[in-house]
């Protein structure tokens, strides 16, 4: 199971700490989606239909959970942040808030091993119910369920007074087969958290939620067992993986690249371009969701349109062979322009007089650039996105002299003793 860092639940007593925890919950719900989606996208259309249905059903509920968490945060006067580059975790990598050395979540095509070693671990309850044929579990720590339970407990403790958020910020009503009621007080927030926990983990008594649906963990276990979990006619045990077959058809899975990044695909290649298009759409989706949960709830339908667009593009990418018998898959990277402008590192070298000990060094600035700068003993380096045209770099030091360098994306130019090198 996923072990989350203890500090996530340490500061819940403070309202700001509570809001931070719910923001982390939003990030956590989102973070499961790329890995589940990647597996889903790897299924060849028309194959592995039951597995596809099961994975998709979990995905839809994770989306619902993200929506519920956003509503809770809005209800307690916070503002969900979904549009920042760091909202997307690195794949492969830990889920947001997870302890170091825990589960590494990849972008990988569907396999029984992936479902068993990653998906089931993500969804594993604190005390998973033992059924015949069950897989051994990892020793427990702080689960996602415990994290949510702690949030619910704190909300109950804080009481209805913290529900100061504007109601119109919440995204309520019907979407698909889910109905979402507004969160107005501690009881409705705790109920929403209950839905999240039960859909993910089931109850402590049964592998099903209040609607009689199997919890995520057990849906994934069905895939691993290759059979449905059904109620036994003569318990105990109450359930067993003895239902109808869920065949896994290996030939019905595209061998998508494992853990692609933007650099996986050669510049100028069809796969790179398709990945750029996908990432731009995916980034647009995050921006659209951010708008949805920050005052424009009607934008949810636009976000749904972007989700469909991501799906169409990902399935087309899976038809692009990229060597070694593998096919392209989306890297789920933050990319707010399509494509990124050339990324260049400029190293400027200049002379300057040594400073007497104890005297504060003057600032070195690069004007007109949104860059992170660094001064390393006379070497000024700066990484920036070049969008054509001339770039003015001004460095100021004791003599207050201003130097101007013109840089281009290729070659090397120097001016007034400053050298600009493009790499």
């Amino acid at each position: 199971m996923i072990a989350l860092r203890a500090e996530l639940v340490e500061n819940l007593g403070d309202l700001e700490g509570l809001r931070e925890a719910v923001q982390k919950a939003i990030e956590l719900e989102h973070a499961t989606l790329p890995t589940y989606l990647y597996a889903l996208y790897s299924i060849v259309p028309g194959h592995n239909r039951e597995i596809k249905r099961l994975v998709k059903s979990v995905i839809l509920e994770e989306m619902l959970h993200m929506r519920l968490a956003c509503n809770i945060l809005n209800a307690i006067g916070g503002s969900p942040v979904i549009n920042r580059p760091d909202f997307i975790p690195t794949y492969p990598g830990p889920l947001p808030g997870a302890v170091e050395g825990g589960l590494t979540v990849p972008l990988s095509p569907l396999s029984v091993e992936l479902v068993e070693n990653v998906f089931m671990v993500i969804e594993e309850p604190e005390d998973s119910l033992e059924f015949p044929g069950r897989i051994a579990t990892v020793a427990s720590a702080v689960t996602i369920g415990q994290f949510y339970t702690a949030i619910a407990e704190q909300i109950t403790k804080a009481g209805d007074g913290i529900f100061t958020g504007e109601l119109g910020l919440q995204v309520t009503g019907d979407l698909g087969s889910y109905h979402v009621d507004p969160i107005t007080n501690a009881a409705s927030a705790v109920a929403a958290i209950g839905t999240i926990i039960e859909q993910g983990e089931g109850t402590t008594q049964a592998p099903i939620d209040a609607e009689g649906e199997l919890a995520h963990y057990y849906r994934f276990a069905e895939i691993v067992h290759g059979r449905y979990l059904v109620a036994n006619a003569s318990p105990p045990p109450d359930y067993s993986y003895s239902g109808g077959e869920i065949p896994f058809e290996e030939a019905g899975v595209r061998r998508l690249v494992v853990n692609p990044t933007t650099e996986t695909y050669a510049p100028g290649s069809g796969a790179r371009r398709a990945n750029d298009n996908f990432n731009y759409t995916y980034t647009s989706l995050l921006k659209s969701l951010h708008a949805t949960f920050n005052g424009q709830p009607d934008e949810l339908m636009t976000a749904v349109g972007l989700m469909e667009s991501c799906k169409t593009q990902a399935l087309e990418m899976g038809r692009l062979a990229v060597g070694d018998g593998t096919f392209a898959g989306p890297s789920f990277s933050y990319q707010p322009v399509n494509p990124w402008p050339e990324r260049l590192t400029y190293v400027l070298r200049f002379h300057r007089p040594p400073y007497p000990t104890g005297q504060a060094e003057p600032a070195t600035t690069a004007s007109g650039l949104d860059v992170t700068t660094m001064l390393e003993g006379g070497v000024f380096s700066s990484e920036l996105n070049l969008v054509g045209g001339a770039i003015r770099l001004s460095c100021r030091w004791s003599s207050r002299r201003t130097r101007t360098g013109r840089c281009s994306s290729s070659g090397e130019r120097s001016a007034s003793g400053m050298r600009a090198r493009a790499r």
Partner: protein
Amino acid sequence: MSYLAALRLHFAGQFQAAPSTVNNDPLHFDNDTFKPTDKLPSLPPPGDPRGWWNPRGNADWRFIGCRVTGASYADGTRATAEDPVLRMVVADADRRAAAKMADLDTEQQLVSEIWGLEVRICDGNGTTVLRGEFAPAAFIDIWDRAQGPGGGGDIGACATYQSIVGDLEWGDLGGSRLLGELRDAAADDGLLSMRFNVDGYNMTLGSPDFTRGRIAGTIGVASASEPKHFVAGRQFMARAASGGNFFKPTGSINFCTALVDEELGRILIDLGNALPTVGPGGPQEDLGELTVGYVAAGESKLTSLGVIDYRADAWYPQSAGVAEVALDEAQVAAIREAELGLSLSSVTSVTFESPGGVYVKADDFVHRLDPGDVAEVAIFATRYGRPYAGAEIVAVEDPSGLQIQVVPGDPDVGTPGSAISFAKTLEPTGEDGRATLRIEAGDPGNPRVFIDGQVFGVRPSLAGQAADYPTDPWNFISVLVFDEFKADEPITWWGGVQPVFQQYSNLYPVMDDFLDLSDYKSVCANLDLLELAFDLDTGNPNSMPVTRDLARSKRAAILRWMGNRGPDGNPLLGTPPPPGAPKPAILTGTASGATARPGAWVSGAAVSGAAAARGGKAAAAARRVGFGTTGGRDAR
């Protein structure tokens, strides 16, 4: 005002347009003869063209890597590197799906429109400085731009889009003087004017550049009172030479527009879609010195106003082809009532302004109408670039730019003429040079059987125009009139919905990966999303059908069907038609059952067979009713 003004910015980069090409063949609309292989890419000529060159297209339209490449201020000075606008990019929507491209009809594929395009100007990190809605627009003035080898068909073509950009949202301008001037100048009407040229389009499946091409354009300020889709300026009228797939101008210069800025003393000419290139998307072809001049009273030759340095490095990407020539006061006065001309030193023919400086054009030239609808089409008449008041304009039905193919069974266009009505003579233009053409739509009565409605062409022109008056073949109004749709009540899957959905399933294979629109169960399983998509405004990029060819009555019936759930929670199924039900007469005795029709597309058309056989716009252009000497309706 328009983009053709001192205050403007230029951009260049790539565009992507990924249409599905299955619907390029009118006979693919016939559900009864559609074959599974029609969803696959063409076999090499003379093999079966099947679903043509991109059957899996999703209709996305995008700006790719477009950068601001140049700009000039309202006072006529050029922006320098100090202005951060020159480090910005022109991008599309970052909060909704990509724009979509759609043809008007399978028998009018030469006015492809862009729908749902949001235009942004942003910095290199994607932070939006300006966003706005590009009003749907169709391309016009497509021509054979690329010279030399490799230029055949669509690959060698160039066309241009022009529209207004509204719903402007300005962000932090980052200290850009140019953007500040644009914002202030656009404050009154809240509109920008945007034009872009597209060429060098790649149709080679498997190429990294597949469905991409070059784009270069200009953004300026628009006035609500002026045309949205062209500049009411001074129109250079190309004359057609023989050959070419689309249009080959005798003077090597395509139709283009100039505008005289008397205050600043200069003439601006948009040559972005007018000068030939070396190869597709290549540099400008060197045709010698390009002179802009005028025909002085009593003269027959051009008096030069100046030369245009179109051969300079990066001239096209940095200017999008917009050139300026300075004029002194005497020149400004001299050209007020004199025809202009463009002359290349290595080309014999001069490209002149329209005779007497008079020009007539419909602004919105693409219309979709349901029976009972009226399109009020603004027609603008200009004389030497100024409003032409009191102009008498006539309109005629003219299907010559629509497309049919010369194989049996291909439905005719433009009939019955009674399905559209309009006044043949318009009320004279007002002081603003404007007249209104009212086109009323009736019910075509399903003349094309398996294709909804009918397409018509209407051409406005000046009354009493001489026979040899130069005309732009693309300057006409395309109208698609849908049939009145009648279904069982209550409507059921088999009683009206299935044939419509079957057709979309056939024509749009990219959907097959997640939805079988021809299958009741599959449709029921995706009902929520379908209901959402069919209920969206067609301006929304996610609107279904992506082809924007669904009659209002059909859309209403489909939504009614989706909303009326039976006891099982699904929409009504109804009963399938009995096998062997009689087919309408048009489907009998046709070639529609044939397995392949190699070469049929271009037989009888005087074009390069190889170029047109690749499909795309070249194939459509070869099938124009009024094209060539042997093609067209009389030859059928």
